[in-house]
């Protein structure tokens, strides 16, 4: 779609232009509404969120805790922090095919942030650090959001900058990658019962962008077997995502949310995401929900499951860059208790969410059966269960 390519190329020139727009809009929004109101929005509620998360499928078993804490200080500042762990036991298709054995690993992430509220403007900033034995990622982020037009509209702008260090277990070399992303969003109340959101996010990465454990396959001269070689990726990756979402209140007290996101990057990947979420409360304490999500993407230009010859500079066989689709069927239940059950706790919420994911690859083959001729193996597919169980306390 040529038109789309043009849009995306122009949008990917966003970084410096974005900065200019960011600040022009920020100034306009901030100053022009002064005569209208000396009002404000509200700080996030003080809370502790303790989540147990689990991903099981595709040969992977990843679980761990995720604790998120928010506390307000005075009436204008709220601080937050989170602690997250992924305990990984993996014998995924990539691990199996490369001949490696199942591995276990742990990733820990820590974050601290602050929200500052003044009148109708909220300024947020934070820092996150994520670490595994062969990967370290540091991210700094900030955003501003502003309510205007009688609080019917909210504009959000955000910027994040990251620095990654990627190495391979057993290898001394540390590779680096830098990340930047910019986002802008507008949420608009349409009626007493509906609102819509519009978000655009553009990201640019530079440096070592591949997974050092992944390799591509190149057909041998005998046309039956293949050889694994380390992947070679471009040094830059720029992408844009545009999403629109709508939320509608149903008269018998329920809500339905529909989302669509379009994604495109300079590696040739284009993706569409569609999601539908239905939330249905039962009485004052129970809430049920059901979700349906469909994702599809087309491959990166330099992706191939099996290269026939060494004719191009960039080569990848990472299944995340192949042509595939995935469907999610999700369901959840929440139970809420108000004030009075535990002293000093205003709300206690128990949530259980289960999602069943099915991934179907159109041009990534399951090469685990080495008795097959290269390029004739069946296309890969897998399913996974994602479970989230959490307790949230508002105090």
């Amino acid at each position, binding site marked *: 779609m040529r038109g789309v390519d043009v849009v995306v190329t122009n949008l990917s020139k966003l970084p410096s232009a974005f900065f200019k727009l960011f600040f022009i809009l920020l100034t306009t929004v901030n100053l022009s509404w002064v005569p209208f109101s000396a009002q404000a929005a509200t700080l996030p509620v003080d809370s502790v969120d303790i989540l147990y998360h689990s991903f099981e499928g595709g040969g992977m078993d990843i679980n761990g805790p995720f604790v998120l804490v928010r506390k307000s200080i005075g009436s204008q500042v709220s601080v937050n922090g989170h602690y997250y762990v992924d305990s990984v036991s993996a014998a995924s298709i990539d691990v199996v095919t490369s001949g490696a054995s199942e591995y276990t690993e742990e990733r820990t992430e820590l974050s601290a942030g602050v929200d500052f509220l003044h009148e109708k403007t909220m300024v947020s900033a934070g820092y996150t650090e994520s670490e595994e034995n062969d990967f370290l990622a540091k991210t700094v982020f900030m955003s501003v959001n502003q309510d205007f037009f009688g609080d019917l509209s909210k504009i959000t702008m955000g910027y994040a900058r990251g620095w990654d260090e990627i190495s391979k277990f057993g290898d001394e070399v540390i590779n680096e990658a830098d990340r930047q992303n910019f986002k802008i969003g*507008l949420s608009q109340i349409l009626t007493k019962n509906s609102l819509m959101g519009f978000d655009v996010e553009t990201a640019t990465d530079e440096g070592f962008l591949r997974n050092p454990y992944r390799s591509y396959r190149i057909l041998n001269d005998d046309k039956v077997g293949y050889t694994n070689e380390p992947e070679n990726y471009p040094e830059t990756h720029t992408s844009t995502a545009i999403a629109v979402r709508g939320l509608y209140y149903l008269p018998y007290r329920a809500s339905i949310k529909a989302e669509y996101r379009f994604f495109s990057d300079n590696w040739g990947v284009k993706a569409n995401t569609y999601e539908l979420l239905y939330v249905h409360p039962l009485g004052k304490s129970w809430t049920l929900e059901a979700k349906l999500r469909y994702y599809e993407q087309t491959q990166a230009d330099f992706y191939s499951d099996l290269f026939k010859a060494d004719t191009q500079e960039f080569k990848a066989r990472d299944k995340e860059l192949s042509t595939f689709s995935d469907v999610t069927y999700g369901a959840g239940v929440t139970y809420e208790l108000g004030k009075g059950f535990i002293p000093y706790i205003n709300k206690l919420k128990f949530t259980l969410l289960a999602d069943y994911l099915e991934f179907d690859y159109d041009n990534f083959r399951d090469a685990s059966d080495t008795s097959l001729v290269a390029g004739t193996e069946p296309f890969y597919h897998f399913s996974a269960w994602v479970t989230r169980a959490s307790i949230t306390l508002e105090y």
Partner: protein
Amino acid sequence: MKVLLLLSILLVNPLLLSGCSDIKPWVKPYERNNLADPIMSLDRHGAAGAYIHHVYQAREGARGAEGGAGGGCGCN
């Protein structure tokens, strides 16, 4: 750059609208009963919501524009 201009006009639109004082906010602050209902939040699940986005980001080629804030009671 043309696209950038188009995008900025789209976003600045509500600002321009309100500049014409004859268009007043059509949902009054005291009419936000339903919008203030927690089931009308774009982000109901906090940590759990952030986690599922991470699951998809790690396994899919797409990233970004997952968020959303807005709606709610519009108080203060």
